[in-house]
């Protein structure tokens, strides 16, 4: 393992066994953490004056189904410290069965739409999210399209000749 940066060293000191692994590559810091520790770690990163990661840049997910990953999903968070000009990445493994993690909306309001997108595309739920509903697809849409087991050719048009193929014409 490469030499740890100050951020990763601090994280390891503070959270110990909750940190499953770290990686530093050309100034790019990554920490893999336990799912239940997302909010405590993010709070620490945000409020510790030496770290001051005050900007949640991005929040997304990865479906590892075709890579035979266990657990199947992985949440990825990118933080940026505006004062220290530093970035750090958090990765959180998420189980395939009933995937759920804690929401970061209490720490960053901006997490709201990111988490809705992840719910929409991957079907990962966020505990304590104020308004967890689809953001890109329509409410009638079934399934989560960026999951690797979503059929590539499945279409769900709202109107047009291919809408509602399962519906039979009503008898008058």
């Amino acid at each position, binding site marked *: 393992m490469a030499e740890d940066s100050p951020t990763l060293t601090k994280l390891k000191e503070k959270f110990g066994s909750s940190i499953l692994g770290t990686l530093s590559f050309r100034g790019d810091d990554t920490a893999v953490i336990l799912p239940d520790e997302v909010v405590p770690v993010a709070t620490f990163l945000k409020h510790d004056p030496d770290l001051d990661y005050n900007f949640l840049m991005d929040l997304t997910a990865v479906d590892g189904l075709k890579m035979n990953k266990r657990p199947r999903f992985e949440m990825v968070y990118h933080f940026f410290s505006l004062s220290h000009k530093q970035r750090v990445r958090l990765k959180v493994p998420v189980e395939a069965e009933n995937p759920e993690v804690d929401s970061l909306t209490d720490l960053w309001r901006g997490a709201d739409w990111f988490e809705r997108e992840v719910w929409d595309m991957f079907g990962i739920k966020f505990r304590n999210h104020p308004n967890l509903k689809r953001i890109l697809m329509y409410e009638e849409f079934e399934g989560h*399209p960026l999951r690797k087991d979503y059929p590539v050719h499945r*279409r769900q*048009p*709202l*109107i*047009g000749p291919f809408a509602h193929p399962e519906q039979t014409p009503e008898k008058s």
Partner: protein
Amino acid sequence: MLRDGFLTSKIEKAVAWARKYSLFQYPFVTACCGMEFMSTAASHYDLDRFGAGFPRFSPRQADVLFVVGTISQKMAPVLKRVYDQMCEPKWVVAFGVCTCIGGFYDNYATVQGIDTIVPVDIYIPGCPPRPETVLDGLMKLQEKIQHSRQEF
């Protein structure tokens, strides 16, 4: 009887001529093709030379619906509703390859050609189409109007 028939035909031609040179367009702009549409409409290529320079942002006042840009499944009912609100006679132009066949977006989110939702008169291919292609399409629409049956 011969005289009546002769006269009707002439009026129809005159009406068609008037209609093809006073197209009020409704630009239904959803994506990057919109930039190309604007450049075509603006002074350099000057859509107004063809009598189609007057955008109406109410479908009730428009003659031709320019569908410019990718149409998602979520947007499809909106497009249909806009089309339904237009008064006859009305025409639809599919601007860009996304509106023609879905373009390179063959996925869960994109309508594979707007002709699955509304009837299309002119398809203008290209990603995006050159202004010349757009003007060619507009002239083809005018030709189509001139040679179609006019109701009035």
